């Protein structure tokens, strides 16, 4: 559960997005889509705590995990300077990931920005199950567009949205999805990851659509194991609501059960 993962490579994908390749054969075998690694970026007092990163892929037989991250603060800025050959202590793979239901097709994946990372991993699992897969992917602008073709199985049908219209549909990715549904798309089930407002929007719309929807959430985390009870999210189940932990009860939750 705790391992020293070797930094095999760090590659800049866009102006502020990176692909980190970590060698940790056991984690690579164990990891399932939606799970995360809790990484000590540096043995320092600032940044101090571990940071959770969802696994973007673990190509079979390679012993390597792909992490895609954006520099958003001090921790990720330090990570973007990680040196090849050094190692990072990682807890993992942690959390409960996506659970595709056999027979439900097509699978519709909804990604906002960096939220695409765990869905790339999920796409490979779904492809193995011979499902039809559609990925609705939204970013702010063409400059943030990740080279997704490199990471996706070939059969995935990609639908692109940018807020500023510099590529694909102009507007929020949730609007693009809504249009596709109006146009006759009938998802067997949906999987979403991205900024909270996007997830909240799709969960709200889904009250009318009523498709099975799994969402992957993010919260500030300390232990990553459920002990500190820091990463709380309110969940309603059977008429009762309570705080659950993103790290161990999630990060993937039933979209209908999250209280936003």
């Amino acid at each position, binding site marked *: 559960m705790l391992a020293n993962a070797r930094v095999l490579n760090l590659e800049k994908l866009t102006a502020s997005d990176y692909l980190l390749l970590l060698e940790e054969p056991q984690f690579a075998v164990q990891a399932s889509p939606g799970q995360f690694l809790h990484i000590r970026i540096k043995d320092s007092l600032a940044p101090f705590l571990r940071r959770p990163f969802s696994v973007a892929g673990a190509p079979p037989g390679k012993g390597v995990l792909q992490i895609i991250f954006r520099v958003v603060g001090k921790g990720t800025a330090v990570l973007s300077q990680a040196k090849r050959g050094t190692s990072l202590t990682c807890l993992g793979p942690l959390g409960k990931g996506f659970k595709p239901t056999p027979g439900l097709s097509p699978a519709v994946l909804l990604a906002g920005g960096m939220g695409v990372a765990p869905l790339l991993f999920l796409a490979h699992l779904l492809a193995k199950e011979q499902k039809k897969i559609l990925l609705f992917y939204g970013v702010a602008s063409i400059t943030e567009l990740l080279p997704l073709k490199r990471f996706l199985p070939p059969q995935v049908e990609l639908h692109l949205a940018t807020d500023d219209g510099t590529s694909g549909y102009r507007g929020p990715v949730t609007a693009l999805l809504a249009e596709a549904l109006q146009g006759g798309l009938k998802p067997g089930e949906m999987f979403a990851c991205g900024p909270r407002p996007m997830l909240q929007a799709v969960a709200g719309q889904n009250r009318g659509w009523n498709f099975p929807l799994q969402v992957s959430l993010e919260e500030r985390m300390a232990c990553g194991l459920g002990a*500190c009870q820091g990463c709380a999210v309110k969940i309603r189940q059977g008429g009762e609501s309570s705080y659950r932990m993103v790290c161990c009860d999630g990060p993937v939750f039933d979209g209908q059960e999250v209280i936003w």
Partner: protein
Amino acid sequence: MVNMADLRVRLGPLTLKNPVMAAAGTFGFGAEYAPFFAPEKLGALVVNGLTLRPREGNPPPRLAETPAGMLNAIGLQNPGLKIFLEEELPRLKSGRVAVIVNIAGESEEEYVILARELSAVPGIIALEINLSCPNVKQGGLQFGTSAAAIAKLVSKVRQACALPLIVKLTPNVTDISELARAAESGGADILSLVNTLMGMVIDVDTGRPFLGNITGGLSGPAIRPVAVRMVYEVYRATGLPLIGMGGIMEVDDALQFMMAGARAVAVGTANFIDPYTVPRLISALDVYLDAKGFNGPENIIGAAHR
């Protein structure tokens, strides 16, 4: 070389197999860290703050990282006494763990009920009275900052239970020694210090407090010098055995607390960084004592006062 040092320590009525404990609120009910090491290795496990009724906890965000530390405002989320007795405690006992239960009441009566009920079940070696949770209105802090209220509450709990009583003190006061003496006069057997320092972080994008609870408790190496100073002061102010905590990451940090007068130490935030911190510190303490030719922790406890 033969292993010479005996790590056992006595704290008043309590004897621990070693002086390194896991602090309340950082180790859950033990199960979360079981994949890393057997919890019976711990000098003692202080379980998450327990209240009479279940507590939902505070709205998120509950955590904020700070330089050399973190703020938390969990709000004592816990399943309540009944579920603890039925589900968590049996699981803990199965591992032969030295369990200390941290209790928080909303009133004196609740503390008394918790103490009475918990002293009636086997498998608990002591109670830690939480007088100092800064994150809930009724987390004990309203008792924990007044000497008179501490003395009164501790004496009531004392009468209700036969278990060794640890009183956990808050650092959010002008004179912690006064509170330590009050706890002693109320009948405390042991004092633990310090709880977190109250703090806050503002989100500059929104201009609003970052934490859902507005304020939170600061922990981690950032507070260590404050905590060491308070242990040093309280050691002089009372005759009670002390458990020291506040930002312990390495064995030298634990040694500082022990030299300041703590007979045992508790590790909190460091568990989040390295789940193996407690067993690592136990081994390192053993190595240190052997290297110095000491028989046990007794040789260093209170050294700073000699």
